[in-house]
């Protein structure tokens, strides 16, 4: 249970970090931020990077701020930073509700939002948020900066569009409208465990009280979290309430393709998806 050998790099600036990453990426170099997923993987020898580029010493990377219509989350912003709403309005409240489901307090003090995004665990709450809201990930390397929009960033279990020499420097979440309703629900056996299934739902109402702009995302079921178009179609134009929510939950349960090969387990996952989507929508209804 001891990590293998690696060389340690502690850059003080972003430029220095991407330069080092550029030289060590080909030799199995990895970025370490909070390390709350990477270090256990190293202890179990599931990961044995030859180089670690530690970005914790770079000033300013923990910033969380709004820029135009986006919430910008810096590479070293810790999970714990979201326990109180980081901005006024539905998005800050949503993130504060979601963060309570991420592991435990001493993990949240250290682990980072962007680390979760780059790690891309199928059961990551932040990845579900990024997928459902349509986040923009900003990657940097010695070759320059680029934005990668989701969908398109997550590419299956623990796989992303990031190149080995690219560092995720920020995640940009679109702000939610002041009248947006949102709800999140996660099912697991014990608080803090990896989710068995989870759902995030947001929508707005038009002047006639009918659902517009529905977003329904499901995580921990497929290789990557994603929006479920069939569930959103079941909501669009409907009055919020039991009938529409049940239809959307059923559509989601049918649309997902659980990674479990065992048919019984896959069926169980679909049942849980039905439940968490329904509960997320009920929470969304009560959120305004």
């Amino acid at each position, binding site marked *: *249970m*001891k*990590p*293998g*050998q*690696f*060389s*340690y790099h*502690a850059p003080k600036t972003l430029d220095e970090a991407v330069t080092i990453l550029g030289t060590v990426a080909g030799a199995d170099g990895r970025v370490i931020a909070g*390390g*709350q997923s990477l*270090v*256990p993987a*190293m*202890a*179990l020898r599931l990961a044995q990077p030859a180089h*670690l580029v*530690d970005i*914790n010493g770079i000033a300013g990377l923990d910033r969380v701020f709004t820029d135009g219509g986006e919430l910008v989350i810096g590479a070293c912003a810790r999970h*714990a930073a979201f326990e109180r709403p980081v901005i006024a309005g539905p998005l800050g409240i949503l993130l504060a509700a979601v963060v*309570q489901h991420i592991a*435990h*307090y*001493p*993990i949240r*003090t*250290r682990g980072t939002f962007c680390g979760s995004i780059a790690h891309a665990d199928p059961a990551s709450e932040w990845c579900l948020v990024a997928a459902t809201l349509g986040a923009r990930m900003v990657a940097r390397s010695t070759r320059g900066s680029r934005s990668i929009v989701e969908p398109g960033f997550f590419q299956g279990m623990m796989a992303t569009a990031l190149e080995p020499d690219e560092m995720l420097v920020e995640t940009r979440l679109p702000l939610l409208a002041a009248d947006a309703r949102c709800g999140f629900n996660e099912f697991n056996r014990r*608080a*803090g465990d990896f989710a068995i299934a989870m759902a995030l739902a947001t929508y707005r109402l038009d002047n006639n009280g009918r659902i517009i702009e529905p977003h329904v995302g499901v995580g921990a079921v497929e290789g990557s979290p994603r929006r479920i178009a069939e569930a959103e179609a079941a909501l669009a134009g409907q009055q919020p309430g039991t009938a529409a929510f049940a239809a959307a939950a059923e559509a989601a349960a049918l649309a997902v393709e659980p990674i479990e090969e065992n048919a019984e387990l896959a069926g169980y996952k679909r049942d849980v998806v039905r439940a968490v989507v329904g509960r997320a929508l009920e929470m969304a209804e009560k959120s305004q």
Partner: protein
Amino acid sequence: MSNEMDIVLEVNGTQYPLRVEPRRTLADTLRDQCGLTGTNSGCEHGVCGSCTVLVDDEPVRSCLMFAVQAAGHKIRTVEGLADGERLHPLQQAFIDNHALQCGFCTPGFLMLAVGALEKNPDIGDDELRDVLSSNLCRCTGYQNIVKAVRAAALQMRAQTAGR
């Protein structure tokens, strides 16, 4: 291949100049190189919480942090809680409330709770239970740990008010 690095760790206000391999965790370094064996190593992959220490006053798993990452930060371990012979209110409350049996998890719980109470002295019951759910105890069933931390919180608040 040896790629040892020279670092200085500040633990409980004392400076420890050390030579460590980067792969060495803070937990192992505290125990083996600083001689501070109060911090226990349990699962060594961040699940059990027995190695919890404070880094810049935040509770962290010291098995999930490398010693080289802790250089330049203020580390507090269970050895720093008592003031000479006088136990920290939380330590006394653990004794008074029978919040330990075998004691293996106790240093981790103490540092977890100290970090949480210093940050939020008026912590509510639900939040306290959520915080304490971070660590594992196989003896007590947790109720007495919750009771002890509540009792200590009261006393710590009274002490602060009396100052």
